[in-house]
Each structure stands twice: as C-alpha cells, then as structure tokens.
C-alpha cells in the first residue's frame, strides 16, 4: 500500500476519524507514516495545551532594570579592567590597553538587582525610558550639547577621605538627562556609580555607572523624578560583590540647585 495521504494523517492525528483497516496495517509497517502521525499527534497535543498561554502576565519591570544594569556593567568592564591595570602598574607604561572583549573574570556570573524601594520609585514607563537609553553616552567635553538648557546643577566635591583634587559637576538638562563631569576620581577596584539621594531620609537610587576616573557621561533620569526631594548627587565606589545597594563609600557629593 502506498503512503497515507498527509491530509488523512492530519485528520487521524486530530482524532477526526479512526484509521481504517488498510491504514492501520500500513501504519504498522511504515515508519515514515507512523512517525509523521506521531509528530502531528504531538503537535495537536501541544496545541490543546496552549490555551491560557495567550494572556501571560507581563514580567515585572525590575527584571528589565536588572537586565540593563547587568548589560551596562558587563559592557563597562573592559575599560574598568584597563583602569585597574594602569592603577596597579608602576604608573603609565607603554603597555597596550586590554583588547575590547578580552576575557574578564568577573563579568559572567555578575548579577545586579535593583533593590525594592528603587523599583517603587520608578514607574514602569520611566524605567522603560531609562532602559532604552540606559547605556552611558560619553560626550565630548568641548562640545557639551550647547542647545540644552540647564535646569539644575551641582558642583561635586571630594567627600570624606577622598583626595581633595577629586571633583566634578552635575547638570540636569532639559531633555531629562544629567550631564556628569568628573575629574581625578581615586582609583577603585570596582567601578563608580552615580546616585540621587534624598537628604531628608537618605533614600536613594542609582542613575548609572561611570567608566573612567575623569570624563563625562550623560545619564538619563526617570521622567517623574522629584529633584526637590532627591537633591543630592553622589558618586560612589562600588565593588563587584552582587550587592546592589550603595557601598557606603562616597567619593563625591554635591547638592542640586535650580
């Protein structure tokens, strides 16, 4: 007997009709037809189990924030590794910089999560905006987007035991970003993170990480951020330690004034 018609196999798989005598005999001997029927039956079974999969709940926004934080950290790693090499070496040598994408020991297992209060501060829409443009854009110091007006600014000064030559400034631009300039940050074994702090209750949230000891970055703010409350800009030294909270080691601080 020749192979069963494919349409026929589909209908048998759906239980639309029973196999007739000749068909049963053929299926008993033909592995190809039997395999196809079994595959179709399996797919029909899967199809029946898809009910309810249409309306799956959306994942919570903090997962997205974690994704962006982890990606930003991973992409910032090569330059930080380079900074560390230079700092531990005997001053600037003629050594070539680490190749981008070179094996980095810490990156893969690293996982950062925003703490719960941070996620409550940031609405889903705001976080989406942060996420999409979350990667730090390094801007040219000589041309700091002259068309942007400054809504508020803060000179940043060395905090605590930070060497006094460390400094910087933060300027909140009309497009909702903070233009951050830092200079002479002390070398750290981890990385730098930028925070907005409410000085009344010391609540805070992270607005991004920095790649280098001196330079500029544009950090997007959540559009609903209350700069009256979260008025202190803080740059901290962070370790790759899986702890998303502020390390407590502030390097620079300054208060925004509008």
């Amino acid at each position, binding site marked *: 007997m020749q192979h069963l018609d494919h349409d026929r196999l*589909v*209908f048998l798989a759906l239980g*639309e009709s029973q196999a007739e005598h000749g068909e049963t005999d053929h299926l008993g001997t033909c592995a190809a037809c039997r395999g196809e029927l079994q595959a179709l039956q399996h797919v029909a079974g899967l*199809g029946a189990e898809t009910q309810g999969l249409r309306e799956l709940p959306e994942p919570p926004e903090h997962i997205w924030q974690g994704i962006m934080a982890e*990606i930003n950290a*991973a992409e910032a790693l090569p330059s930080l590794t380079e900074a560390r090499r230079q700092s531990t070496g005997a001053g600037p040598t003629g050594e070539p910089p680490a190749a981008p994408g070179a094996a980095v020991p810490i990156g893969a297992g690293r996982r950062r999560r925003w703490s719960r209060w941070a996620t409550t501060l940031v609405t889903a829409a705001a976080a989406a905006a942060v996420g999409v443009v979350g990667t730090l854009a390094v801007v040219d110091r000589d041309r700091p987007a002259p068309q942007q007006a400054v809504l508020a600014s803060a000179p940043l000064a060395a905090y605590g035991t930070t060497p006094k030559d460390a400094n910087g400034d933060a300027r909140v631009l009309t497009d909702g970003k903070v233009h951050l300039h830092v200079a002479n940050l002390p070398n750290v074994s981890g990385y730098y993170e930028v925070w907005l702090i409410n000085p009344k209750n010391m609540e805070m949230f992270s607005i991004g990480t920095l790649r280098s000891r001196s330079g500029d970055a544009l950090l997007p703010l959540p559009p609903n951020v209350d700069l009256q409350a979260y008025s202190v800009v803080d740059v901290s030294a962070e370790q790759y330690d899986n702890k998303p909270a502020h390390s407590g080691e502030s390097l620079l601080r300054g208060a925004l004034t509008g």
Partner: protein
Amino acid sequence: MRTGATVGHAPRKATRPVTAVRHEPDPPPPDDLAERFRAGDERALREAYDRYGRAVLHLAVSTLANRSDAEDVTQATFVAAWLGRDTFDPAKGSLIGWLLGIGRRKVIDRLRAAARETRVVETVRQLPEPAPTGPDPDAVVDRLVVADELARLPDDQRRMLELAFYDDLTHQQIATVTGVPLGTVKSHIRRGMASLKRRWEVDGAAPGPRPAGLSGAR
C-alpha cells in the same frame, strides 16, 4: 475552496502567502526585529523583552520552584542573549525560539544545581524521597513555540484550530458553528497544522538533542 499553498514556505513566516478574500487584521506582521536585535539596536532589545519576556518568564516560573530563581533566569536569559547576539542566526530559527533555548538551558542548570543541593540535604538528613519535580522544560518550550505560531497564523486558520484544540469540536461541528463550508474548514486546519508542526520542528526543544540526565516524560 481557496488555493493559496502554504506548504513549503520559509518557517520564519517572512513570506506569508496571500490567501486574500478576507480583510481580517493579520496578527504580528513579519518584521525585522530579529535582524535589528542581532545588529545591536538597543531598541530591539527592549522590543524583544516586551514581546517575549513573558514567554521566557513563563518557562522559568512553571519549571522552577522558586519565583526569585525564575526571575533571575529570565534576567540572565536576556543578558546572555544580548551579549551573545552575534551567535544568533535568524536564518536558523526565530528570535523567540532562540531566547527560549537559552532560557531552557539556564532552567536546566538551575534544576541540576537544586537537585545537587537536595541530594546533599538528603544525605545529611537521611530523607527518603526527593521533592516532586516540576514540568519538563522541553515541554514548556514546545508549548510556547506552538502558541507563538498559533498566534501568527491567519485568523481563520487560528480560529478553526482553536475550536478543534480547546473546544474539541469535530470539523463538521466547526463548519456548523462558524458557517464556513466543511471543505474550507478542513483546508484551514490542514494548513494550520502544517505550520504548527513545521515551527515546532524548527524552534521546539524536543527535536534537537536532549540533555542527558533530564529524561522528561514526553
């Protein structure tokens, strides 16, 4: 009876056959998300998350006992996908299939780690039986892939298949309920089934190599 042949077109649905006649809104049109993702467009990452994050999370939540583990796996899946986007080949399968494949491996890693922990605890405490295991990740991936394809089918094919799958109607009953001629019902179902099967073969977890140690009753 309509004649637009669907058999043999590319599994990625880049070229859905125009069977015309109807003007129903066609769900997810072919787009370039996969290509943009691979090219490193950050907006594509967010779009992929918006579209497929729930499927990846569903895979993790339904196979892992711990909600926090499931969220970790979802996060790690998208991070790994983004950092490894160079290895994604849109010609070999869909983006959601690729993402679910990454998620599936991470789920299996977690399950193995949990099984190791359980064994240690059992050895220490001399407990009798291990905790019951959740659903097989491969089966969950297969369901999600089939559900995605079902959602992409032309409306009439999808409607007929849903009546057959969910309501267990015969083709004759479907014809009666919908007022569509029996021959047309049959052809919609035949084409829809062919698309589902092809997609399952491309993106499903089962046809590929099975991981050792996770038998998964199928």
